[in-house]
């Protein structure tokens, strides 16, 4: 892969909490969100994966920023294998944060599709459980459904695609930390009908948890995130 650590403009973000859930969702409900030149990965015919990640960045994680929380949502798409073989590739569709400075930086530096600022965030680091809300109402509740996580030091390389003014950009992102992933089934929380999800009718789409990844409570992980480059 293109090692993000060596790429121009790579920023290292330290996080002390990360919880990602990948939801199966009907392709029909989300395909309008993807540019024509990209294709959605189908884990079963007609079933796409919606990725939702909650992060907590402690004070000083990047520059002088105070502690803040982020929620990022995207759809799993086919990767560009000429860049390396990632764990997955994702077209990022929404990002919100508790910190305005962080949001401005996400737009100017990473071209990320910022949605807005949260009004209320609750993160329980152990057990992994989060709740995000803004002026429009609840966005999501999300929780781990595995009773006995076994954490191991690891890294996950993924490709983060964004679209800006009709152009696609990609960044090779590397996450390092003490991590665990599983595919247990269970009640992983709720995705609410909310503009953060860009018009998906969650009640009709009935997303179902497909996989979860999260970091070990009390541990610090690092996200190596270079400035995205134009794709194609």
């Amino acid at each position, binding site marked *: 892969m293109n090692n993000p650590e060596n790429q121009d403009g790579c920023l290292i973000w330290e996080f002390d909490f990360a919880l990602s859930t990948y939801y199966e969702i009907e392709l029909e409900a989300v395909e309008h969100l993807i540019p024509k030149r990209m294709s959605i990965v189908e884990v079963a015919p007609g079933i796409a994966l919606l990725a939702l990640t909650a992060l907590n960045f402690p004070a000083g994680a990047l520059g002088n920023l105070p502690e803040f929380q982020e929620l990022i949502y995207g759809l799993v798409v086919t990767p560009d294998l000429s860049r390396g073989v990632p764990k997955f590739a994702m077209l990022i569709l929404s990002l919100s944060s508790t910190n305005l400075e962080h949001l401005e930086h996400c737009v100017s530096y990473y071209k990320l599709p910022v949605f807005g600022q949260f009004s209320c965030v609750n993160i329980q680091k152990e057990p992994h459980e989060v709740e995000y809300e803004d002026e429009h109402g609840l966005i999501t509740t999300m929780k781990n459904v595995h009773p006995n996580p076994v954490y191991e030091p690891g890294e996950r390389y993924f490709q983060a695609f964004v679209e800006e003014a009709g152009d696609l950009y990609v960044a090779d992102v590397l996450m390092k930390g003490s991590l665990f*992933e599983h595919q247990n089934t269970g009640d992983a929380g709720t995705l609410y009908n909310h503009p953060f999800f860009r018009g998906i009718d969650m009640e009709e789409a009935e997303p179902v948890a497909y*996989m979860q990844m999260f970091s070990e409570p009390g541990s610090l992980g690092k996200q190596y995130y270079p400035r995205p480059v134009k794709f194609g």
Partner: protein
Amino acid sequence: MYTFQIPHLGAQRPEVAVQRISGEKLDLISLANYNYLGYSYHPEVLQAAKDALDIYGLGATGSPVLNGTFRLHQLLEQKIIEFFDMPGYGVSLFSSGYGANIGVVSAYAHKGDIVVLDRLSHASLVDGAILSQATIKLFKHNDYEHLDRVLNRLDYKNTRILVCTEGVYSADGDTGHVADIVRVSKKYGATVLVDEAHSLLIAGEHGRGVSEEQGVLDEVDMIIATFSKSFGGVGGCLYAREDLTNYVNWYARSRMFSCALDPAVTGGLIKALELAGGPDGQAKRERIRSNADYLRARLKDKVDIGDSHSWIIPVIYGDEHLTIPLSDYLQRQGVDASLMSFPAVPKNQSRIRLFVTSEHNQDQLDRGADIILQAAEKFGFLLDK
């Protein structure tokens, strides 16, 4: 250490001999094959196969719609019709179970139609749905309430809808909720296909499958049978109303463009069906159920066997990294078992699948269970650990 695709040196009996890549030969108790009723090596079945071979030769050497249909094939169709004993029904033969599912689904549904599949449907149903170019919808495994919601959201007035389910699911050994799925599907005017691959000749009073067992045989529109499991041969068929099977005969491309069933197998299948429809089949059905109950009782509460109620018993060991060493261990201790690992099943839900037959005796089941439990102890998946 590599144990997959290991050559077997004889018929799929309760005890088999295998030869590993190294040349080493091992004698094993087989809990890995689908020869549920032992018909693949039944003397009468073999004699019928030999007789057919003498008359018709090795292969059918032609498409069933051209020169490949023999009198023998028509006889098999007739025997299947008699076995189900429902007037107005017909049979469409295929040279594999996979071919039957992809052929039937893609012949029945087309662009603009909707195929609704159980989330754990067999690959052949999924591939048939993809090939049909119909819109594919999935419902949660065996969840007829979710199926109801999926169907309720469809614009079904001008659309052909095909709902597919299975009699017994081979990854978990659980039974399809066929009766509930039929009831919900009919509410929306949908056609129902039940793949009885792992249940025909076994489930139901007369061995007519889970559809018979749940009292909805005459409400199911299409039954798919596979001849490579309880029949002990190879091939498959659609059993449905005669007008539908006539249609499928001409529009299922996997049938039209494949050679017809080979004669020796066809002869053997006829005999296997005769036996299964009589006292032999009745006795074997009772034995396989009691054998499965016996093995389940030996394993239950000691290892995780999921929700199995059938002759397929999964033993869930979890970590996919154990698959190769565990498989190697089982073979060296004397068990031929079928392991399923990620991504065939979700992460950390890897499993040994145990296939019980009517032909196992109690000693073989005990030896098999002992080895499975030893493996559970050694690899750390005993429940009390």
